[in-house]
């Protein structure tokens, strides 16, 4: 690990100031991506801005027909939140399925969504539920937020503050884990919300994406069978020592089917 300056601001405004003043500063939340990168000397920030002291980033609450989750909410808190469990059980279950107990006690939803690892869990929920990403500057719709592998609409001096999830009529999630890393090898989050049906696929491609053919099929007939014969093209999907693009394409259909079954 290279040396860096360490800051622990207590407000979003102060954090943004630190980030704006130094283009080589990096925010840190749970640290599950940044810390290993630092330890392997793959990243050399001049300073690290620790967000764990900012009260405004914490908390989970229901506001009308939305669940608002602070960026620093940990996976464990989301998994165990009575509000989330009641309103979006698939999201609570997803949070409870990430990594292991140590990971869930440190990792945050804001960190995961801002990082946009193609193999992460939350981006699929955010995209499928049509959530709104609230930042220190603006509100960004999920469809505009995710921009491919490790890329989002966030600007360097912009902090993810919270995520607003509309409460869906139904939602379900299923994933196949990478046998080694246990990250998502292919996952599907299906949701029926006021605007219609949305299906987001994670793990399989270079970034989370919507599966429009499945959305159309499920709009017409909300059942596992509706997606059972919809094939995901393998073109552009990830291929590595754990699975070919063809295998991942196949898993997309299997996971979509299971996600619908999971949603009930």
């Amino acid at each position, binding site marked *: 690990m290279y040396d860096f300056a360490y800051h622990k601001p207590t407000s979003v405004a102060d954090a943004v100031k630190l980030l704006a003043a130094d283009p080589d500063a990096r925010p840190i939340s749970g640290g599950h991506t940044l810390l290993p990168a630092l330890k392997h000397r793959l990243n050399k920030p001049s300073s690290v801005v620790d967000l764990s002291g900012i009260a405004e980033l914490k908390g989970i609450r229901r506001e009308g027909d939305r669940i608002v989750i602070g960026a620093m909410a940990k996976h464990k808190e989301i998994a165990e939140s009575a509000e989330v469990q009641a309103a979006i059980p698939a999201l609570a279950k997803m949070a409870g399925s990430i990594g292991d107990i140590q990971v869930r006690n440190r990792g945050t939803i804001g960190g995961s969504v801002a990082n946009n690892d193609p193999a992460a869990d939350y981006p699929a929920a955010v995209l499928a539920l049509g959530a709104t990403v609230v930042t220190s500057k603006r509100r960004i719709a999920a469809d505009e937020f995710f921009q491919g592998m490790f890329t989002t609409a966030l600007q360097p001096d912009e902090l993810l503050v919270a995520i607003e999830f509309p409460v869906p009529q139904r939602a379900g999630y299923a994933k196949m884990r990478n046998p080694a890393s246990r990250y998502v090898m292919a996952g599907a989050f299906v949701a029926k919300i006021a605007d219609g049906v949305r299906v987001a696929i994670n793990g399989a491609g270079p970034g989370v994406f919507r599966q429009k053919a499945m959305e159309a099929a499920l709009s017409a007939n909300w059942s596992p069978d509706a997606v059972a014969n919809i094939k995901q093209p393998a073109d552009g999907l990830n291929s590595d020592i754990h*699975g070919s693009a063809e295998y991942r394409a196949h898993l997309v259909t299997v996971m979509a089917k299971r996600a619908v079954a999971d949603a009930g």
Partner: protein
Amino acid sequence: MNVVAPFEGIGVSVKRKEDLRFLSGRGQYTDDIVRPGQTYAYILRSPHAHARINRIDTAAAQASPGVVAVYTGADLAAIGGLPCGWQIHNKDGSPMAEPKHPVLAEGKVRHVGDPVAVVIADSRERAKDAAETILVDYEVLPAAATMQAALAPGAPAIHDGIAGNLCYDWHIGDKAVNDAAFAAAAKVVTFETTNNRLVPNAMEPRAAIGDYDTTTGEHTLFTTSQNPHVIRLLMGAFVLQIPESKLRVVAPDVGGGFGSKIYHYAEEAIVTWAAARLGRPVKWTADRSESFMSDAHGRDHVTKASLALDANGKILALRVHTQANMGAYLSTFAPCVPTYLYATLLAGVYTTPTIYCEVKAVFTNTVPVDAYRGAGRPEATFLLERLMDVAAKETGIDRVELRRRNFIPADAFPYQTPVALQYDSGDYQSTLDEALATADWAGFEARRAEAARRGKLRGIGVSTYLEACGIAPSAVVGSLGARAGLYEVGTIRVHPTGSVTVLTGAHSHGQGHETTFAQLVSDRLGVPVAQVDVVHGDTAKIPFGMGTYGSRSLAVGGSAMFKAMDKIIAKGKKIAAHLMEASVDDVEFDRGTFRVAGTDKTKSLGEIALTAYVPHNYPIEEIEPGLDETAFYDPKNFTYPGGCHIAEVEIDPDTGRVAVVQFTAVDDVGRVINPMIVEGQVQGGVAQGIGQALLEHAVYDTNGQLLSGSMMDYTMPRADDLPNVGVATHTTLCTHNPLGVKGCGEVGAIGSPPAVINAVVDALRDYGVSHVEMPATPDRIWGIINAGRKMAAE
């Protein structure tokens, strides 16, 4: 009042004495040791699989803050290369190719991770900072990352003067007899397989500290080793030319080895050499990424085999052609793994009359490959036990019945195989029967049908296996090319008040020796386990011993202790006879009590010990004071544990994921000292066997980059990958060691992989599959299922 102490001897599951230390964080591992004035070494390693080094510029590193020294291969050119401990001869009698294995690269790097330079600084971070400033001018050469690439015409030459990258071309067996048997066969079954390359991944990464006393000229090396005396011999005599009397090697608590910590590694020589040169201690500790690219890997065979059978399914002959990957250099014991630890096991538990095996060992631009839990025997067992299932399918004979027809009968021991080994004992029908009953083999089809109703493909697989361990008779292994003896040493030191210290050349790095060995003493001398301390791992404290590998600690090291106890008892009898005014011949000894036969005259071991150390009333003209005896034990034969493993799997046909849902192991490990420890050893071995069968795979790309270079891509078995492993033992005693023990450390890893794959193939019986390569990953299984469905559709 008589207080009867609980019996803690042979056969009792005494709780492990060492666990309080380990579980409360009080273990003392190499990296926990801090020497005064200690410096830290960082090894700069090659990022290329094969490259010429035109120039190394270390000027900036030398000038970096905190740097004490920077060394490259040029600085170490005068010292020896890392030696190989086993010489194999080619078919034509010529010795194997044995290229120099430099401590730091000399002019060329041959695998990713090959050490190029070492930076020594006052902190690990500063050493690393400085290493980043070293400029190495590499001329990248084409790499041969696989055996196929290394053997291809025009392949890059990894070592100068070694034609075709061939280390040796070896064989065993009478080819003419074998060919004749094949010619007369009613049925010939052929089979090809690749035994996957594995990374051992002990929990504790390797570490080493060199220390040097400038006033006495004594070197000390603290290292993560399974055999400190072997390291002292190899490094002292062959690499650094330090006499034994000036070199102490300490292997303190070691967190797992599985073979990977047997070998003498470059870092040990580097820190020892540098500490003397600098007059300051030098510590090196691997991080996990370094472990992946510098610890010896395991397995990596490609094999073609044929089995000849008569019309009744009786095996007539076996023929095997194997290519074995050595990696870029010869690790300490690498050459013996695919030969004498492999081909000699190809009879397995069967009466195969003739076996011919040839093995080509190949250099590649990969990390050296050496013995990993089981070493050679898992490869032989996997081959045989898959071949038996393939033969069963092709002959239409039930796979259990086919095995039974070919078993060596229980009354045929000692049994001479056609591949050099003579088995002393075993009862394969009984272990099979017990396993079949425990696993409810007969009820399987009902479970398969029930699983099918849940949409799962269920399969069951059996493996009846044997291995050779308790290595080994020194004269035998010497004649086969070993450059070492393989005896073991034990000292029994009875203290004046009757407590005991055991010194052993065996080394415990997870096996529970401190408990098992104490039980041996308690059983024989009647001393409570709590009053028996076991000392190991320090060449300054223990006599010359060979260490722990090949499931040898109890069979060889325990037998040495047994012999030392013989001497203690014999001497004690003389002292007791003197004290009780009886003839020595009339003195009996039983669990701590010397008695004049037929009388109530007794002396306790404590009384005898006190007399021996305070010899006021003592036959001083006849015997020396003290009660402290050492014995060396050289085994008369290998030991031959064996048994039956049965795996039951369920496959999710939608994802291809295989779950092992039931596992039964019935093993004959000889006499069991501590059943709890045996159960743990077998379960640990089975975990690694399931890891090999379903999960683990070290994968190189064509350029020689290790794609599975971290836990993110190398699938270690985890608790939720494993079923409950039912362990039972069915004992026949070893006939040639005094304890009747065979060894249990490797049976789990040897017996289980073919049981699992046989179950996977059985689960896929409707998909026209005769074999599934390891690891049976979801991707691979789905590919088979998908291809099967496509075929069915067409």
